């Protein structure tokens, strides 16, 4: 089950808001779509990310894919441990597999994200 308290993007990222900080990750669907993850490249604390723009890359066995930011803001924490233990992301994408914590630059962007129910509908349309 996908956590009910999270917001989702059409491009398979999730966001959990706490005060002015958004924790960001990719969904179980994205992890499954990419399959065997081998490398990840994340930005650094202090870097700025822009909604809809790539902030990093992830390599699965046969492709290198962009990771896209669901919100704009400044990175206040990076889950650096993932680079050495990508099985954490594969096994727990909504928990210990989080990617970034972002200080929100524009909270109104959260309105473009969708509820778990709407996200399920998006997945159903894609399949």
């Amino acid at each position, binding site marked *: 089950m996908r956590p009910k308290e999270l917001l989702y993007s059409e491009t398979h990222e999730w966001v959990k808001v706490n005060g002015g900080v958004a924790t960001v990750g990719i969904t179980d669907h994205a992890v499954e779509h990419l399959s065997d993850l081998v490398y990840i*490249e994340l930005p650094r604390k202090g870097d700025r990310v822009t909604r809809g723009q790539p902030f990093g890359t992830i390599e699965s066995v046969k492709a290198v894919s962009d990771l896209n930011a669901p919100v704009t803001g400044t990175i206040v924490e990076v889950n650096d441990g993932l680079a050495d233990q990508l099985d954490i992301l594969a096994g727990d994408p909504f928990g210990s597999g989080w990617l970034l914590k972002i200080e929100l630059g524009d909270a109104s962007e959260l309105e473009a994200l969708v509820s778990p129910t709407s996200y399920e509908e998006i997945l159903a349309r894609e399949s």
Partner: protein
Amino acid sequence: MTRWRLVRDGEHAPAANLARDEALFLAGSGPTLRLYLWNPPGLSLGYFQPRDRPLPPGVTVVRRPTGGGAIFHRCEVTYCAVAPLATRTMRGALGGLSIPDSYEVLHQGVLRALESLGIRAHLARPNDIDSPDDSSEPAAFLCFQRRSPTDLIVQGRKIVGSAQRRTRERLLQHGSVLLRAQPDGPRSVGVQDLLASPVTTEDVCQALVQGFEAALDAELVPGSLDADEILLAERLVRDRYEDPHWRRSSRIAPPR
């Protein structure tokens, strides 16, 4: 039937070859198939491969925008397919295909090309594939030493090594169709190693054009890189492929 641009791009230096592939990808061009050779030869590293490893002296080393293992580009014809991945509104070409499905379509093109030259290749079977359970064994440094389900195999040896890069909107897949086995061991084989009669690069290119036309259900229309793509490729050579420190996330904006 979709229309693809066919760029028969001759031979270029290693940095220029990768830059021209990526220019097609970043420029937002329509579906394009580029066929090319390498002169001088070069060693390309997968995007995430460590660059501090001792490498053979005198060889130009470049870092690909795609993943996978290292390839020594010498006796091969390289293909690069770039296409939109847009979903619902734009089916056709490679629209909406998953990573394995898009590999399968493009590798069907190469399979047909090899078959027309008289070579029966097949997609890797379970006993060809490296055991994914053996996590103690790091992935081989060289692409042609690795095995995965999308690989094309002849007599247990790999004849084509391909790698893919994706954004949300677009796909780039390039691959080396070997004319001769890689210099480093028995796990690869080339077209010219397998056939008794001489086969030229032109023969292989023509076979690839016909193979991709059939697999993509496409008409390949001869063309070339446009002025914007050439300018972008020149920037990418300078700012990325000749820079040993580039990071993928240091992005280069496409032309407007």
